[in-house]
């Protein structure tokens, strides 16, 4: 694996020992520096080609149920006695769920396991063209509900803690509003709730998007289109500067592997089912139905004021994908007495897959969950 990602210099067309031929002096120094840059750029190119081979999602787990749309994973407990209430993680429909288990020292899931939780994860599969009509109603009332029933059955309990990330948080909120009797706690990470308060570039594009033409001509929302939108987010600081940083640190194996894991995740973008995407853009971003309790799933109104269970809303202050104010609105409309917002000075991904997250976010989240999971 390491050999594939870090090939020796002589295998990627880099002259080995070439610098010895350059004469000494200031011009010689410049040429030597240029030669070094050339070596690093070439190494970066070959390293990036191998990004797909980098390993992610290593925490031991088993697939306990699988359909064409999703896999339900159960992670092996890391303590002898886990909390009584199992925790069901609902991942987003954008990119892949292994961001929650990126690498052992930056794994959201591993940390929860170490803190004594019994963790399950819904890993959404890429929809095929025939899944064009799969909607939020299917995801929330059918797929999440099915998974939840399996978890309840397997863990011999009556309720679970529902824990969503990003779009998965929004779906978890919808589920909790419709089926509160099966949910003990709701923990959301950066949910999209009140799009009027969302001032991000993504929200700006979404509010003007011609989703009907997309649905009619493309069916499912293709990954290229999603990449196009994401590339407009911090286009130079993240789009260009990160590669310049990579060139500088190309010989630092840990830095490169970390970079590749994130890079792999960023470009691992499956399409989104057409009808779901249409609802996401139309109902949530353009009409802002969710916060106004006007969104309907399967003919039933999603009334957020019906949520009375304990709710933890985890927000990143520097989130450039979902504005903090957009997520924070959840706590204003639910009826829960036990509700809390935790704010952290980090970004959307840094919130779940970073050293900061391991040291500052997860201990507090674990503490909140533990006291409500016995």
């Amino acid at each position, binding site marked *: 694996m390491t050999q594939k990602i870090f090939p020796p210099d002589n295998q990627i067309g880099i002259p080995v020992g070439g610098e010895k031929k350059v004469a000494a002096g200031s011009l010689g120094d410049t040429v030597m520096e240029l030669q070094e840059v050339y070596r690093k750029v070439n190494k970066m190119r070959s390293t990036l080609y191998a990004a797909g081979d980098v390993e992610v999602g290593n925490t031991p787990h088993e697939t306990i149920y699988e359909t064409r749309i999703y896999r339900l994973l159960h992670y092996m407990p890391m303590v002898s006695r886990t909390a009584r209430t199992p925790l069901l993680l609902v991942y987003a429909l954008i990119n892949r769920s292994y961001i929650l288990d990126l690498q052992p020292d930056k794994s959201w899931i591993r940390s929860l396991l170490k803190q004594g939780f019994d963790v399950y994860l819904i890993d959404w599969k890429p929809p095929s*063209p*025939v*899944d*064009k*009509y*799969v909607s939020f109603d*299917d995801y929330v009332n*059918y797929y999440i509900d099915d998974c939840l029933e399996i978890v309840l059955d397997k863990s011999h309990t009556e309720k679970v803690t529902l824990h969503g990330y990003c779009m998965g948080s929004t779906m978890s909120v919808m589920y909790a509003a419709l089926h509160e009797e099966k949910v003990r706690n709701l923990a959301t990470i950066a949910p999209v709730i009140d799009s009027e308060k969302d*001032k991000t*570039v993504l929200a*700006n*594009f979404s*509010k*003007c*998007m*011609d989703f009907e*033409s*997309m649905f*009619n*001509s*493309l*069916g499912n929302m293709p990954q290229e289109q999603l990449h196009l939108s994401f590339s*407009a987010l*911090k*286009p*130079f*600081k993240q789009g*260009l*500067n990160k590669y*310049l940083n990579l060139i500088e640190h190309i010989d630092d194996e840990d830095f490169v592997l970390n970079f590749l894991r994130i890079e792999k995740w960023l470009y691992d973008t499956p399409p989104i089912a057409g009808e779901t995407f249409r609802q996401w853009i139309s109902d949530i971003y353009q009409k802002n139905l969710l916060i106004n309790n006007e969104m309907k799933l399967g003919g039933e109104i999603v009334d957020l004021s019906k949520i009375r269970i304990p709710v933890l809303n985890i927000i990143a202050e520097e989130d450039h994908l979902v504005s903090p104010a957009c997520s924070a609105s959840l706590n204003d409309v639910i009826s829960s007495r036990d509700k809390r917002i935790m704010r952290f000075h980090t970004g959307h991904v840094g919130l779940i897959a970073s050293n900061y997250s391991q040291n500052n976010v997860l201990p507090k989240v674990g503490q909140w969950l533990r006291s409500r999971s016995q």
Partner: protein
Amino acid sequence: MVSEEDKNNYESDSAPNKAVNLTHQEQEVITKAYNAWSDTLKFPAIGPFHAFSRDFGSNIMELYKFNQSLIQFQATLADYWTQIEKAYVQAMNEVALGAPEHYSTKQDLEKYRKLMIDSFEKSFSALYSSKEFAILQSKAKSNELELLKCLQDNVEKNFTLLNLPTRKEVDVISEDVHDLKRQVRDLKKKLEVLTIDDTKDIPT
């Protein structure tokens, strides 16, 4: 006074009028010839060609629509690139104003790099956050999709020649299958509830 040359010109100009004033017999011959060719084209052996000639009018209309969409797309793209160029020029101006005078040390180069990234980030983030650009981008995408739709309609029409199901037909089936799956799942759930209720009724 009309000269001899003008007279010749006049006769030459009026030649098409002569052609229009066909005799009844001439018109009949032309109609028969046209019908004979039309019937010939309907022979099964030349079937696809017949299908094409039958759809000639609509194909022309599609081509017209395609060209219209293409022109619209180009116009929108021109506006789109104007905005991108404006943001680019604005960023370059900022870079030019803030750039160090000499690049003698590594710190100078580092400073230049930071300035460049920050200036471009600021300029393009402002552009992408503007409503004007979002509308323009959406319009460009709609134009592109309109072009795609023209191509899809044209290809789909020809699918019938190959006796293949069209995208619309597959779409209808997908929707039906999706509805059926939901119905089956609902029925299963109801059946489970009924089974549980029945079990409860059994005396122990």
